[in-house]
């Protein structure tokens, strides 16, 4: 079994693209820059497909396929290699990252055409691909951590891409700093593994973990490691309480939000938890923590999403909420379902962001949904693709997310690893809210009358609606082909992406999860087969969530299409609660008051009190006194030769006197 896939090519090509564009791109034309970046990411995608095809021909026994390139660190008995591995989970991830990544590269060519820093943008985007692929291909935690930090860096650079805008610069900083908190937990988990297992290579760590018993009670080693890993995942995947950076990350260009803050990077935490499944399988407590965090995040973020008015922020909170779903799946040890939702989410959420980007593009930078409306006639491609994505995320039957979301909710209810009706109940409520806020966005954007500033005189008045109070949008235009084609491809994927995992209750075979099964090592003792227990219940739950989605749709239809004056009345009626949710529960303000302000105040005290007053003070005082002393002593050197002579004489007399005195 000597298959050698040259896996290094997959992250290597985007790295080369990033290097060439980053170092030389300033001199290149836009065409050259985009050709280079597209070639790099496209070639990585092609190679990932080649690997997938060859992977299909491998015998099961040879997995995971490990390619060892070099030893990175060797210290005592510990060593960390530069090595990539390929198994089913990695394969799914690299296909998502390179596939969606390539489409978003294509889209960016159109979206960023008018922006400055074109080469910089594509260089960062390729750099992000490199780190993300390193993250998912690494065969040990340390190399994974390199990718983990690298995507954080790329995210920081791209959020702050419009760095002249103050809000973008500080959003980048916020993302980076909040992620540091999570990384702290991740690092401690790694240190614990080094100390207890002497290795960070997945196979070795998991082999040692597998020999340990399941920690049923109390907080043992595996629980500690698991919870710390989850802290890391909370930072990267924007879960409670570290989710605050993601909504602000919308300051970046929209394709970046699609690629990094929806489709790929934020799912790194889910990937990491799924990858660490042997640890979580042996710690029900850690699993419970994951499930509770996921449930609360899904619910909490969805409530905020209900009232946001910025189109990208709605999608940002939706992303947080959907990531919560994935963690619920991981928390009930249904890792396959989590990764399944990760994949469908990558399709439909990337599409939602790109379509939102297309709307923003069409309106010349307008992001407030209150100033949109009636756009479906003007930007039909965007409208139809957005519709596909909205139907998908809302959980419309036989769209992709229907399968993945119901798989998660079914597991949340029935999993032998702590599934119960509470997780399911919150999940179902969240599904209803998801449907509501997505259709709200859809109605506000594409239906009704245009509410933005009226168009230039005579521009669009020929439509026969001269009586409109708000007028017609001014220069609304459909995006160029280079943007709509990726939208169309993603729309197709959003619709059919779920068919790889049709659950058996609907007559499918759930290929996707069976494909991933070899990666997830459930302890054999407690392994139970759920498929035979309660098909009726599964169908019933499916109906419930679908009903919730339909109710969400009907509410949105009523409030934002039939009776558009109602929402403001309801908002006025709800008063305090509405303001609370509108202001995102004042979490940012709370963190500001509890963490940021004391830190700033404390730092200021250290700066003025310790650094300036004490350390600088001591140094300055000694320097100052030396200066004073010198100033006095300097006067001896008057320049008057006879006074020097007098000093010499005096000195000689003193020396002689001393010698004579000693001699006595």
């Amino acid at each position: 079994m000597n298959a050698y896939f040259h896996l290094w090519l997959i992250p290597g090509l985007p790295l080369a693209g990033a290097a060439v564009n980053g170092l030389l791109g300033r001199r290149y034309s836009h065409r050259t820059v985009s050709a280079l970046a597209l070639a790099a990411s496209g070639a990585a995608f092609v190679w990932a497909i080649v690997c997938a095809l060859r992977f299909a021909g491998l015998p099961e026994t040879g997995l995971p396929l490990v390619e060892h390139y070099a030893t990175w660190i060797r210290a005592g008995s510990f060593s960390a290699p530069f090595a990539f591995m390929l198994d089913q989970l990695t394969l799914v991830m690299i296909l998502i990252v390179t596939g969606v990544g390539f489409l978003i590269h294509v889209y960016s060519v159109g979206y960023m055409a008018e922006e400055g820093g074109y080469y910089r943008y594509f260089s960062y985007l390729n750099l992000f691909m490199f780190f993300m692929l390193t993250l998912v291909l690494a065969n040990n935690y340390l190399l994974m951590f390199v990718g983990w930090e690298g995507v954080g860096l790329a995210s920081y650079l791209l959020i702050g891409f419009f760095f002249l805008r103050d809000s973008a610069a500080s959003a980048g900083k916020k993302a980076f700093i909040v992620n540091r908190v999570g990384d702290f937990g991740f690092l401690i988990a790694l240190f614990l593994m080094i100390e207890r297992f002497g290795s960070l290579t997945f196979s070795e760590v998991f082999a040692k973990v597998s020999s340990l018993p399941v920690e049923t009670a109390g907080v043992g080693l595996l629980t500690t490691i698991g919870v710390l890993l989850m802290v890391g995942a909370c930072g990267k995947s924007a879960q409670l309480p570290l989710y605050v950076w993601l909504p602000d990350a919308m300051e970046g260009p929209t394709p970046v939000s699609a690629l990094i803050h929806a489709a790929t990077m934020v799912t790194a935490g889910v990937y990491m938890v799924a990858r660490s499944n042997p640890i979580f399988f042996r710690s029900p407590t850690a699993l419970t923590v994951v499930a509770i965090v996921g449930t609360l995040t899904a619910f909490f973020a969805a409530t905020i999403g209900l009232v946001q008015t910025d189109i990208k922020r709605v999608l940002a909170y939706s992303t947080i909420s959907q990531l919560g779903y994935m963690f619920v799946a991981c928390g009930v040890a249904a890792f396959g379902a989590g990764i399944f939702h990760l994949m469908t989410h990558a399709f439909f959420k990337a599409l939602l962001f790109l379509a939102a980007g297309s709307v923003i593009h069409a309106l010349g930078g307008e992001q407030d949904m209150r100033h949109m409306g009636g756009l479906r006639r003007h930007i039909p491609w965007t409208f139809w693709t957005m519709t596909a994505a909205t139907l998908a995320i809302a959980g419309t039957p036989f769209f992709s997310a229907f399968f993945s979301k119901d798989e998660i909710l079914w597991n949340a209810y029935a999993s032998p690893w702590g599934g119960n009706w509470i997780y399911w109940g919150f999940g179902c409520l969240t599904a209803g809210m998801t449907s509501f806020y997505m259709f709200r966005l859809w109605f506000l954007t594409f239906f009704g009358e245009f509410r933005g500033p009226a168009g230039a005189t005579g521009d669009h008045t020929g439509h026969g609606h001269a009586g409109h109070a708000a007028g017609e949008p001014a220069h609304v235009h459909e995006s160029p082909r280079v943007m709509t084609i990726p939208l169309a491809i993603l729309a197709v994927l959003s619709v059919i992406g779920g068919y790889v995992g049709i659950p058996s209750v609907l007559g499918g075979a759930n290929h996707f999860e069976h494909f991933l099964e070899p990666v997830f090592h459930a302890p054999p003792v407690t392994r139970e087969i759920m498929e035979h227990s309660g098909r009726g219940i599964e169908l019933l739950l499916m109906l419930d969530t679908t009903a919730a989605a339909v109710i969400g749709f009907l509410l949105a239809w009523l409030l934002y299409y039939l009776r558009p004056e109602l929402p403001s009345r309801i908002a006025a009626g709800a008063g305090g609660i509405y303001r609370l949710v509108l202001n995102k529960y004042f979490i940012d303000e709370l963190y500001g008051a509890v963490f940021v302000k004391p830190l700033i105040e404390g730092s200021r005290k250290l700066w003025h009190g310790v650094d300036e007053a004490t350390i600088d003070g001591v140094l300055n005082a000694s320097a100052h006194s030396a200066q004073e002393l010198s100033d006095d002593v300097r006067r001896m050197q008057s320049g008057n030769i006879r006074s020097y002579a007098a000093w010499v004489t005096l000195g000689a007399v003193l020396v002689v006197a001393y010698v004579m005195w000693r001699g006595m």
Partner: protein
Amino acid sequence: MVPLGYYLVLGVILFACGVAGFLVKRNIITIFMSIELMLNAVNLTFVAFAAHWHVLSGQIFVFFVMVVAAAEAAVGLAIIIAVFRTRETLNVDRVNLLKL
């Protein structure tokens, strides 16, 4: 024979005169002569001790001192001439360009 003490007292007196002149006088040439006076006071002591102890090295030392004094006189007088040419004075208190 004149006792050693007499020579030493004479040497001290000469040396004290040299020091006093060196400190008090303003004319560079006078100061220069005062230095010579001090050197010769020392020479006198050397010679006196050499004769008293019957050791030659003291007398040889005197030659060295005289050689150095001669070299010093040559250089010193040259400097004095140069100073006089530029400053047109021999008053040491006015040769103060290096003063801070």
